[in-house]
């Protein structure tokens, strides 16, 4: 069956607009819409899997109009965002306000839009939707910490949006086009200085959302303050979409040795900062937040190894994204009580932690392994040592975390079931054979 990819965005938007009219049943309506959207995202993934990259024109043919360009990685990310969003919604069932459901749908739609759009300004618009929805969702707990985190996030996020807009304006001033692939094909015509300045602006702007090194001051506060369901949403939704946007920037628009190098060292700095800070935390949620930063650094490293190790880099990022999205979101759900009482939560928590540390045969292991291979093929031995070093630190604090959080207290079913299901994904993606084929296919279009 052929599915229009634009429905992935249009349906959540339509239902978000519809919810104020049907306030009474908004919860069940949202669940059914999220389910529908997950089914669509699965269909889109299969279509991409069969056909390769798919395009969906909106209104006019590009470069005059806008189109959606869905490659394998973005189809996978759309799947992750939508399916995980549907599963994770179960944990927020206690929220009664229909506005919460609207914001949730909008955050999902925005993150999906970032990954599937083929137009750089359209990407900015979806960044805005995602960011604004996330600010409100973070503050929805209404505790002092939540509001503090949300305000920090909002200030940095709006600065970041300004930077993105500046970068896009500079690109448009030179290329007279906003289509990513069109820009990529003609990037050599661009003035060298403007290219660099716009790259810097875009990296800075998206880096706020992607939790990169100097721009991630908001991360621990936000994850600590937000309620568990929302922290989980942030860990698989907006941050993954943003890191994918950076990948498009690096691999498609500005492919050159220097950009890869810059991204590589930013990634390494992010990784080390995140892991070392996580090791020193005493609060579980803050530890998970810093560990998220570290993982984002890993994913960025994977994306920046594309000059020699492209054979390995895309599978590496693929598995790292899957592993981090599933494991970290399930751990954030666990951090609601932070005690693994029942067998279900024990299973979920242990699987998630092992996948994050990188134990075979879970998805996290394949990610790290391909990452090592990619780094070795580029002869970046120092990077390997640093990644390994951070991996050891990660293992140490996660082992401490496991050791402390195994206990007798039970969690509510609305948290226990989603977290178990979410962490199953890192197991399933580590084992399913067709995933390997998918991961090894060329990604990001014919660039």
């Amino acid at each position, binding site marked *: 069956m052929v599915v229009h990819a634009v429905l992935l965005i249009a349906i959540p938007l339509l239902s978000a607009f519809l919810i104020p009219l049907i306030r009474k049943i908004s919860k069940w309506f949202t669940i059914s819409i999220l389910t529908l959207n997950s089914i669509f995202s699965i269909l889109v993934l299969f279509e991409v899997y069969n056909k390769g990259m798919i395009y969906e024109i909106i209104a006019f043919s590009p470069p005059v109009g806008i189109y959606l360009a869905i490659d394998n990685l973005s189809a996978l990310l759309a799947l992750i965002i939508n399916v995980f969003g549907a599963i994770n919604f179960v944990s927020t069932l206690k929220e009664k306000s229909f506005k919460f459901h609207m914001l949730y749908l909008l955050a999902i739609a925005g993150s999906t839009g970032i990954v599937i759009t083929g137009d750089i300004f359209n990407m900015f618009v979806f960044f805005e939707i995602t960011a604004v929805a996330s600010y409100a969702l973070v503050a929805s707990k209404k505790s002092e910490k939540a509001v503090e985190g949300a305000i920090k996030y909002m200030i940095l996020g709006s600065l970041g949006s300004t930077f993105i807009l500046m970068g896009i304006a500079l690109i448009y001033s030179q290329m007279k086009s906003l289509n990513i692939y069109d820009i990529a094909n003609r990037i050599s015509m661009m003035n060298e200085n403007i290219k660099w300045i716009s790259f810097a602006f875009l990296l800075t702007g998206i880096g706020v959302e992607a939790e990169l090194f100097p721009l991630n001051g908001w991360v621990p506060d936000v994850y600590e303050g937000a309620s568990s369901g929302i922290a989980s949403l942030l860990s698989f939704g907006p941050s993954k979409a943003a890191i994918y946007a950076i990948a498009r920037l690096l691999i498609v628009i500005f492919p050159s040795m220097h950009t890869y190098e810059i991204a590589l060292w930013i990634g390494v700095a992010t990784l080390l900062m995140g892991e070392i800070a996580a090791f020193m935390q005493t609060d579980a949620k803050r530890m998970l937040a810093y560990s998220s930063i570290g993982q984002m650094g890993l994913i960025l490293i994977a994306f920046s190894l594309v000059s020699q190790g492209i054979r390995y880099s895309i599978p590496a990022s693929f598995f790292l994204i899957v592993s981090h999205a599933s494991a970290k979101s399930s751990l954030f759900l666990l951090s609601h009580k932070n005690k693994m009482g029942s*067998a279900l939560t*024990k299973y979920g928590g*242990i699987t998630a932690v*092992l996948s994050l*540390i*990188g*134990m*075979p045969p879970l998805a996290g*292991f394949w990610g*790290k*392994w391909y990452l*090592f*291979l990619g780094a*070795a093929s580029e*002869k970046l*031995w120092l990077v*390997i*040592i640093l990644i*390994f*070093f951070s991996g*050891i*630190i990660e*293992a*140490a604090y996660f*082992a*401490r975390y*496991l*050791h*402390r959080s*195994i206990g007798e207290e039970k969690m509510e079913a609305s948290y226990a079931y989603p977290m178990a299901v979410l962490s199953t994904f890192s197991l399933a993606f580590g084992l399913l054979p067709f995933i390997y084929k998918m991961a090894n296919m060329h990604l990001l279009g014919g660039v």
Partner: protein
Amino acid sequence: MVIDLIIKIAILTGYAIAGTAIGLLFMGIGRKIVARVHNRVGPPFYQNFIDVAKLLSKKTNISHGWIFDLALLFSISGILLTLLFLPIGGVKLLSMDGDAFLVLYLLAIPSLGFALGAGASGNPNAGIGVMRALVMLLSYELPFVITLIALMIYYDTTSIAGIVESQHSQWAIFIPPFLLASAVADMALQGMLMEQPFDIPIAPHEIASGPMVEFGGKYLGSLMIYKAISIVVETTFFVDLFFGGGVIAHGKFSGIVNFISWLVLIFIFFTLALLINTAFPRFRIEQAFKFYWKYETILATISLIWVYWMVIT
């Protein structure tokens, strides 16, 4: 198809049984050697076989839930999987690009397994032991990884089999920087084997065997099997890296010769570890940490830079 599978399963079982037997034998001989150093007679060398048989035939009444069971299974399967990836006497069973990283990860599995088991058992001594074991893991991995990367840079491969094959003409130990690196790696081996002065996690006199304190009966028997295989695996890893997997002959009966030389080599390094064990008192945990992260890491880095310099000139 089916026959292939059966053959594979048979080979795996054979590896497991052989590894266990060699390990238990070594442990028995080791007990004898330690006793001689202490000027005692010591148990016979087959004592460990008897111990394991006895423990496995015992009935276990105490259980701490499925995580506790899983932890042990986890550790044993991790160490068995590692064994399959290590070439023995130059004969490789499984091999792929980048399996050196895989083995490093696999070697960390048992520690995590024990952390899980200890967490599930709830014994405070086990908790202390696990914390120490994790700090030890943290300590010795870093210098070890640096030496491993020095090897990878020199031989330009990321698979252990590749490293072993590259050493056919000349063992790595005869190249000056790797002499230094092997000294570092040997100390890391001492930590991996949990022999003195690095037996802090077990610390028989302080915390009653640390992570393993709650294991009894069948569990203790399987634990001994795990210990036996881990001796073989860890020494083999060391020998593979620096002694070319013990490969000395290429020819008609080279398989047997190489197997024997491998056996001799791993026995030598196990004995070396035991002798160090008998001669030194135990470090405190922060001393061990400092030892590894200060002196060992510096030496390893020196050898890495030396190798790098050799490669680029």
